[in-house]
């Protein structure tokens, strides 16, 4: 199968602190990959490099065979872990912004996801709850026909109803031609969604593999492996 992402010997240093240390990782087309690790493990740094927001110190990062740049940004749909819309906007304005920015933005898809999320276009960004914010952001991200979707903590801090809607929206919009990279520390909620898992600890990949194979091999759920790896 074709690799959407190829990372070789990726290192990122902030002054004297190493955020990522010699990371090697391939992501195949059609796979949902979970980057698992506690806060400060390097998840967001890795994602920001893929999204083209940070530059690596050394190593090679290819998306769809291309170095990170304008080309890759146009095929990567990235959900940051914080709000990125202006307060004065209505949902409709946010949609128009996306439509202008990304040629792969699919308005019909957006409308479908939005109504699935029970959001209305005339709602003001300012008046949305945290869960609604998260749902809107995800709707914008998933409405693009991208090669790689990067979701940074998509279910952190939302209530259980919103969480289920978000998980459903992710499944509904899965397709074999693109890949998804999801960071989370809420492993239990996400684990049945993941094909592959990558455990990141202090900038190093300490365990990676097919989620089902790991479950079989260790007779444990990924959540339990996570606790074993990161717990005391």
């Amino acid at each position: 199968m074709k690799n959407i992402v190829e990372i070789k010997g990726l290192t990122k240093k902030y002054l004297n602190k190493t955020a990522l240390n010699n990371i090697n990782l391939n992501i195949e087309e059609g796979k949902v990959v979970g980057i698992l690790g506690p806060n400060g493990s390097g998840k967001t740094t890795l994602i920001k490099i893929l999204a083209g927001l940070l530059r690596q110190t050394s190593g090679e990062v290819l998306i769809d065979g291309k170095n990170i740049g304008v080309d890759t940004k146009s095929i990567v749909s990235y959900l940051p872990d914080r709000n990125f819309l202006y307060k004065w906007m209505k949902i409709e304005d946010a949609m128009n912004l996306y439509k202008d920015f990304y040629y792969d933005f699919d308005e019909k898809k957006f409308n479908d996801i939005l109504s699935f999320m029970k959001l209305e276009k005339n709602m003001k960004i300012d008046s949305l709850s945290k869960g609604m914010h998260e749902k809107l952001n995800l709707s914008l991200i998933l409405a693009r026909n991208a090669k790689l979707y990067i979701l940074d903590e998509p279910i952190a801090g939302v209530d259980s109803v919103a969480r289920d809607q978000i998980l459903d929206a992710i499944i509904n919009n899965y397709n074999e031609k693109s890949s998804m990279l999801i960071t989370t520390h809420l492993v239990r909620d996400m684990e049945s969604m993941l094909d592959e898992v990558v455990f990141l600890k202090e900038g190093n990949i300490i365990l990676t593999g097919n989620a089902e194979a790991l479950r079989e091999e260790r007779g444990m759920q990924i959540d339990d492996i996570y606790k074993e790896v990161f717990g005391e």
Partner: protein
Amino acid sequence: MDFNDNLPIYMQIMNLIKSKMVSGEISGGDKLPSVRELSKELKVNPNTIQRAYQELEREELVFTQRGMGTFVTEDIEIIKSLKRNMARELVDRFFMEMKKLGFNSDEVKSIVSDWSEKEERQ
């Protein structure tokens, strides 16, 4: 569905479908939900559902018709033998657990017959 078991998820899904076949909830020739439908229903990665269906097919419990979907086998013998195998596994597990608790076979038998008498009376 909660995937609490330590088995791989595809196996848990296989077991779910197998018990539905054995209990008659789905019968020979019935169409299984599409990969996507079941994926949504169970909130499980579509690739995992696909794997469960492939393994069920390998065990000849289901068959795929191109463009039509996945169907439960119409061979009653296969379903009967599945039922026997599942029963045997349950009994094995039961006896093993009872042994761990320190019961011998005769004691287990008398516990079982007590239970079934009580069940019949109700």
